[in-house]
């Protein structure tokens, strides 16, 4: 027997036509976003395409992959030596990320879980460095690093970036929001501060650590002006500077190898970024009240 309910359902079903059911609601929103994504993605996709082409393909505006991939690869990796630069960049990016996170964790621990005389002076000391971006200091830093004999070494690329006011304050903020009972319990259990840090605090801080890590890795990987200044020769150079030399020169640039190099040089930071995306977003947490 057909009930009112059945009639209603049947009526609903016929009103929602096939068309309306297939297209998602607010299709125009999706359209706009897709167009925006395509626009933003287009340069890199085009670069990937050109990476397989030779210059004659490029200038003929061929939009199909060419067959110069192997040749371009050879130019990029062997002749320009990008593989060596990539390894260097990986090394310093990881070194700084790990080191800076560690030092910031220690500093955050010190600021939150200890009292000591002159704490506010130390705090101010660290605070003021927020006004000293490295780019401003680059001339004097260059001279100083050379004077202590660190010119052209990994030390020069790593050590100056191990200390961070923002990192320290990030962890300070984070640790301050952790209930005091945890550290009291840890002290009752006889744990020393470092054990407390690594066994209790760190496992509670993965989001913050991840946010700091992704920003640091990308920052160090993409750094250009300082390595260009301080490193000479090819041995220790980083990938950004190596890529730049592919672009330079008076002769006509070989776009195929250049684009291939650009794409290859972008893979690690993009991968790191995608993997730690969630942490990155939480690091930029917008503290808005609903």
């Amino acid at each position, binding site marked *: 027997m057909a009930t009112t309910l059945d009639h209603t359902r049947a009526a609903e079903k016929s009103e929602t036509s096939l068309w309306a059911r297939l297209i998602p609601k607010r299709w125009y929103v999706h359209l706009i976003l897709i167009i925006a994504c395509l626009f933003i993605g287009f340069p890199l996709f085009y670069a990937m395409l050109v990476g397989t082409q030779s210059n004659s393909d490029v200038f003929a505006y061929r939009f199909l992959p060419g067959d110069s991939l192997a040749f371009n690869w050879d130019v990029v990796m062997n002749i320009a030596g990008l593989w060596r630069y990539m390894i260097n960049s990986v090394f310093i990016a990881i070194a700084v990320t790990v080191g800076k996170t560690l030092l910031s964790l220690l500093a955050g621990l010190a600021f939150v879980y200890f009292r000591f005389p002159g704490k506010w002076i130390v*705090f101010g000391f660290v605070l003021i460095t927020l006004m000293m971006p490295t780019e*401003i200091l680059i*001339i004097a830093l260059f001279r100083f690093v050379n004077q202590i004999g660190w010119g052209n070494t990994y030390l020069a690329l790593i050590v100056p970036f191990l*200390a961070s006011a923002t990192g320290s304050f990030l962890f300070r903020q984070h640790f301050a929001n952790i209930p005091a009972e945890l550290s009291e319990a840890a*002290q009752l259990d006889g744990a020393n501060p470092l054990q407390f840090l690594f066994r209790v605090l760190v496992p509670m801080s993965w989001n913050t650590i991840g946010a700091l890590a992704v920003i640091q890795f990308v920052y160090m990987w993409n750094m250009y002006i300082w390595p260009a200044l301080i490193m000479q020769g090819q041995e220790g150079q980083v990938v950004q500077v190596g890529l730049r030399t592919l672009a330079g020169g008076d002769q006509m640039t070989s776009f195929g190898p250049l684009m291939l190099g650009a794409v290859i040089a*972008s893979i690690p930071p993009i991968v790191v970024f995608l993997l730690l995306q969630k942490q990155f977003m939480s690091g930029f947490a917008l503290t808005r009240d609903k």
Partner: protein
Amino acid sequence: MLRPYLFSRKLPGVLLMPSFLTDLTVLPILISAVAAIIGASLFYVTYRRLNGNPLVGIALGGVAGAIAPVLFMLPLNYCTFEAERDPADVLLGLVLIVVGLAIVLLPLRWIVSRLLQNAPLAGDTTSPGAFKSRLLPLFLLAPTLIILAMFLYYPSLETFRLSTLLARLDARRTAFICVDNFTRLLRDPGDGQSLLTLIGIAVGLMIAGVLVLRFAAHFTDQPLIGTKRRAPVALRYGVPLIIGVVLYSLLFDAASGFFSEDYGRSLLVTFGISIAIVVIGLSLSLLIATMAYQPITGAKIYRTLLIWPYAISPVVAGAIFLLLFNPSGGIINYFLRGAFGFTIPWLNDPAAAPWAIILASVWKSMGFNILFYLAGLQNVPKDLLEAGGIDGANAFQRFRHIVIPMLSPITFFLIITNMTYAFFESFGTVDTLTNGGPLNSTSTLMYEIYEIGIQNSDLGKAAAQSIILFVMVIGLTVIQFRSADSRVTYGA
């Protein structure tokens, strides 16, 4: 536009320092005495207001005031007041004294007022469950403090020191030249500049700067609809407009009449490119974000697909656009020719090259901007918009009066972030895409510093320009830090 040449060349007598003043044993004492009086009165007022002992205030303020000018003048040996110096040198010396006073007195006053009110000095976040040791924390902080001291503090001081020297990269010997590295960035007074103009422009720029900062401080408070804290509409739109026009004309005239040709040009280039990046980047991103801010399926995927250029380096962006903008092989011109019938000589024309930099930078940061605007738009309360609709506002009015003000913290954050990017990180793009050319039309301040300091090996001049850049940026970084505290947190 200002007409510097309307002012007379020199005010007779005013600038001819009486000889007893230029005697460098009298002048420091005189300056310190005046400064001491200023400091003493300031602290007297502070102590009176906070029920402290006014005599202590006078003493403290007096001593602090007396010492403050020495901060800058002693390393310089008061050289800016020597008899044979230009008015520009004297003016700079006075500015340094005032700055020194501010640096010493204002933080001291803050500290003192906190102490007098028994308020904590650093928002103390010590947990109640703190550990006992007093020594361990210093060990924990030691690596950070040592590295900060060696690689941030020391180079900062060195930069100041270098800016007063004639120094070359490889030469060990240096020559002290007082503030010449700075005044040489000004147009030679022989070209018709009078001191009155210099003072006028300097004061004007400072006032403009303060106004900008004060106005910007408004944005760190979340605007509440209908409360008295919001400035009236005329003020909110009129003030930035006026500031913009004033700054622009000052800068334009300043650049052409105040600064030397090279430095004026790089100032214009930097500000032009930065403002364009901010305006174009934010407008486009807001446009896209408003068209797409409803919560939809797959939002996370779109988000990822929009923001990933953040991970691309400025050099890579420069390289890719080097191809795209190529006059013969680049598809941008290919498209222009096909669709509109003309091409633009992006990289060869001094008028077009900055736009190449701007577009490459906007591309790189657009996803980032869209992301933040999306988040911000999603947080605009729907009932506010409905209330506005009920009150009779159309969509455009609702957008202007509700949405945009509610977005102002985000807009603010994005302005700062984008400007910081444009000032510093665009170096990689400039070096790859245009090499500062053609004809120095894309030579930003940072690029100039690099060229002058490293390629031309003139360390002193580069250090001086670094300091000026630092002063310009210091407002940005302070605002950024203060807003990071309250609204958006991010690490770097």
